[in-house]
């Protein structure tokens, strides 16, 4: 059978296996969607300083970005590291075309998880944060390219990290803290305006900040521009940074994967 079709079917079966395990499903959702809902209920009521927009509405695009970011750079590496530890990756190597099928399958589960997390954040956002659908076709278009580019920016790198770490626990230990720190400093919960200069600089290196910025351009009115750095949302620069991460990952990941396979 064609490796792509087989990989798509593999991904779907994997996803059903995860969904049928209630504990795993809840763990997966509690992370991003759970944190989002709790934060909105506790601090979402206040307005972003100097703007008429609530913290809840401000945090929604950030968490949408974080759903993509954390699935690609935490969930995916942990799954791949677990697959390696259990021998699933080794099994794939024993099969003709097995690695292609395996990676296609992992891409499918990652995209499905991102879609599910993003949909749940938005579903919660409508009643809890008063977020509405993007008002113009132009903003819909921005939503699509920001999500696609944001996903491409993290998934190949995440796959490579997964094959480099020794196991899922090592992956969690290595990735959880940096991801949380990035969430704190990348304007997901608080506007970057509130951060000291060095921290702003660090945040702007990573794709999380730029994806959040792009998504705020989709969902938030211009009346919150005061909360952005330089009172503007440079979408061109967002596309450039996300695109650079995507290209870097797509070039680097196969190279890293081959090195691991050669061992």
């Amino acid at each position: 059978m064609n490796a792509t079709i087989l990989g798509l079917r593999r991904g779907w079966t994997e996803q059903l296996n995860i969904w049928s395990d209630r504990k795993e499903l809840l763990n997966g959702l509690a992370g991003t969607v759970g944190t989002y809902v709790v934060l909105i209920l506790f601090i979402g009521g206040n307005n972003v300083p100097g703007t008429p927009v609530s913290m809840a509405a401000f945090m929604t695009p950030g968490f949408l970005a974080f759903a993509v970011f954390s699935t690609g750079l935490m969930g995916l590496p942990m799954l791949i590291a677990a697959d390696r530890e259990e021998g699933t990756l080794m099994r794939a190597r024993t099969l003709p075309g097995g690695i292609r099928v395996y990676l296609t399958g992992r891409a499918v589960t990652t995209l499905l998880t991102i879609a599910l997390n993003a949909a749940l954040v938005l579903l919660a956002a409508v009643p809890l944060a008063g977020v509405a659908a993007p008002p113009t076709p132009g903003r819909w278009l921005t939503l699509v390219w920001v999500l696609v580019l944001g996903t491409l920016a993290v998934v190949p790198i995440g796959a490579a990290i997964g094959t480099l770490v020794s196991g899922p626990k090592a992956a969690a230990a290595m990735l959880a803290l940096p991801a949380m720190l990035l969430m704190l400093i990348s304007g997901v919960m608080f506007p970057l305006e509130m951060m000291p200069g060095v921290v702003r600089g660090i945040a702007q290196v990573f794709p999380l900040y730029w994806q959040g910025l792009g998504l705020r351009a989709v969902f938030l009115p211009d009346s919150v521009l005061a909360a952005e750095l330089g009172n503007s949302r440079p979408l061109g620069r967002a596309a450039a940074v996300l695109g650079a991460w995507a290209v870097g990952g797509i070039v680097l990941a196969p190279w890293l994967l081959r090195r691991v396979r050669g061992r």
Partner: protein
Amino acid sequence: MHDVAIRVRGLRMAYGPVQVLNGVDLDLRRGEVFTLLGPNGAGKTTLVEILEGFRTGWSGEVEVLGENPARAGDAWRARLGVVMQSWRDHPRWRVRDLLAHVAAHYDDPHDVDELLATLGLTDAARNRAGVLSGGQRRRLDVALGIVGRPDVLFLDEPTTGFDPEARREFHLLIERLAGEDGLTVLLTTHDLAEAERLSGRIAVLVAGRVVTCGSPAELAHAVQAPSLVRWADGELETADPSGVAWDLHQRYGGPVPGLEIRRPTLEESYLDLIEEARGTRETAAVGGAR
């Protein structure tokens, strides 16, 4: 040439300063069951993984089904079945789903349900792979290894951790598989009885070198250690205990007081052989260091 499944000449491999394989030669004919016997750390798994195409950095000549494993592609891989040591992969997958998925990688796989029945896994078909007993899991591994109708099947220590009954069932299964025409089986074990029971030919690998190779009977002969003859006034190690006993009878002019003859079991002989081979290697290593 076309009835040779695996051909190895002068295979060497080192992990850093440690020489794991020291010039291995092997020939496997198509359709034979061949056992690689040796103590832990002898290099069995490394050798098998080289043949499977999962290791690089070796030197020598290796051909599996006419190709160099380090460079062969998917068409070659489709003709191999691989059962590695202690697999725990795909724990969340149901047995039948996993077997069907693996089968779909091949052009002409076995019928999944028939294979499950053959391996006694029909009742476990809906179970998740992670909850199977050790014996069931191993049978699933074998099913996954043979579902693509391989020409060569690698079994790396397939019965480690089995209880005697599971082990017996497994041996029957391998004999049945080997009966199918053309399937070449390369099996590793550190269990002499298993090697004797299963295979046409056995190669003993010690310290990265094949020290003897042949049928179980030839092996028994090759490794036969001296017997011990003991009597009231002395003892003697000899290859001909019967002759020594006869001489003693002559000398005593009748029954020999306290006569005792101990022939070593095949297992003891095998252990002797391993000791001897290790000794030679250490001597050689010391010599080489000078």
